[in-house]
């Protein structure tokens, strides 16, 4: 149980022994798992949902993975902040796209992150991942995948720090001007 979790294999798959914080036990049962999803298809099929499938989109919030014909995005692929931009091919193809593809390409006239896209279109993030992957394959979207190593890049970190320091507080003052003299 909880106490032993710190001495046996940790919950994150790491056998590391951790200092014991007194965990709060949740009283409620764990939520039901999502239906088991198949591995992503190795080759993306040309997306061609039947017209009646598209017209039932108002109910898709319940079963979002209908949109992706059951495929799910692997957790490791396409980070949330991945930037996507429509290509001119994508914009030209707009009339031929399915409802969700159309919505994604049209929204990406300006660069957007996958997270912003999902939020704006009210689609599950993983649904957006899968459809964006299809659109990339079809060359309707340019997908700019960030590298995880950016997080340890000294020059990037310095730029972020400098940029954030310049963000004014609610009195309009940047970071360095509100230090006591």
């Amino acid at each position, binding site marked *: 149980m909880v106490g032993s979790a710190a001495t046996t294999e940790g919950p994150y798959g790491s056998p590391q022994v951790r200092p014991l914080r007194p965990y709060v036990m949740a009283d409620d049962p764990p939520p039901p798992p*999502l239906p088991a999803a198949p591995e992503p298809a190795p080759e993306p099929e040309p997306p061609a949902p039947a017209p009646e499938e598209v017209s039932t989109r108002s109910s898709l919030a319940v079963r979002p993975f209908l949109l992706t014909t059951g495929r799910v995005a692997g957790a490791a692929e396409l980070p949330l902040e991945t930037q996507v931009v429509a*290509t001119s091919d994508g914009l030209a193809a707009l009339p031929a796209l399915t409802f969700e593809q159309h919505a994604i390409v049209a929204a990406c006239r300006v660069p957007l992150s996958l997270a912003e896209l999902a939020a704006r279109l009210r689609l599950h993030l993983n649904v957006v991942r899968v459809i964006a992957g299809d659109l990339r394959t079809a060359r309707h979207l340019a997908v700019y995948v960030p590298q995880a190593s950016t997080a340890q890049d000294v020059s990037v970190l310095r730029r972020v720090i400098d940029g954030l320091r310049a963000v004014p507080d609610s009195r309009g003052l940047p970071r360095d001007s509100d230090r006591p003299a």
Partner: protein
Amino acid sequence: MVSAPSPTPEDFHVTATALPEPEHLTAVANRPPLPVKMVIAGGFGVGKTTTVAAISEIEPLTTEASITEVAAGVDDLTHTPHKTTTTVAMDFGCITLDPTLKLYLFGTPGQDRFGFMWDDLVEGALGGLVIVDTRRLDDCFAAVDYFENKGLPFAVGVNVFDGSLGHDLDEVRWALDIGENVPLVLFDARERGSVRDALLVVLELALARAER
């Protein structure tokens, strides 16, 4: 180091950042900014969304995402933790730091269960801020454990709800069982400057680590 790389479309395996893009992928917009992200974590109602909203240039957006949850119990026979995938609402905002650099702030879903994995959110993050309400300190243990375990640079931000702190910061540090290397700051989740400064503490820590 080289100057910050802009992300490159995976479709072509270019390494230089200045290569023109092939015509079929000609941008209908400018090259996107380099996206970077930080994670805002903590228990229920500690001020995560308030923090994001205070500094984001857009109203915080919410999206449905999946997290992996490890049930508190383990399977009796295999001693393997149960894992389930849970769909949660995650909110986030962003700050355009300059035309080539955009900082995303992702608020983890309120979570006080024993085991959960935000791997999806945290992968590639610059660092994390764990928000604490001193009236319910234990709500943040899961987040502290998670970030420690992931090796993500993080700071603990005590959200001073009523302008007064019921405890000494040293007491808080002791109660949280965090090392001296974890910065502990007081901040006000409603104040942009205060949120900015708390994030800067995390970033300075991340920079110090990256420079080692």
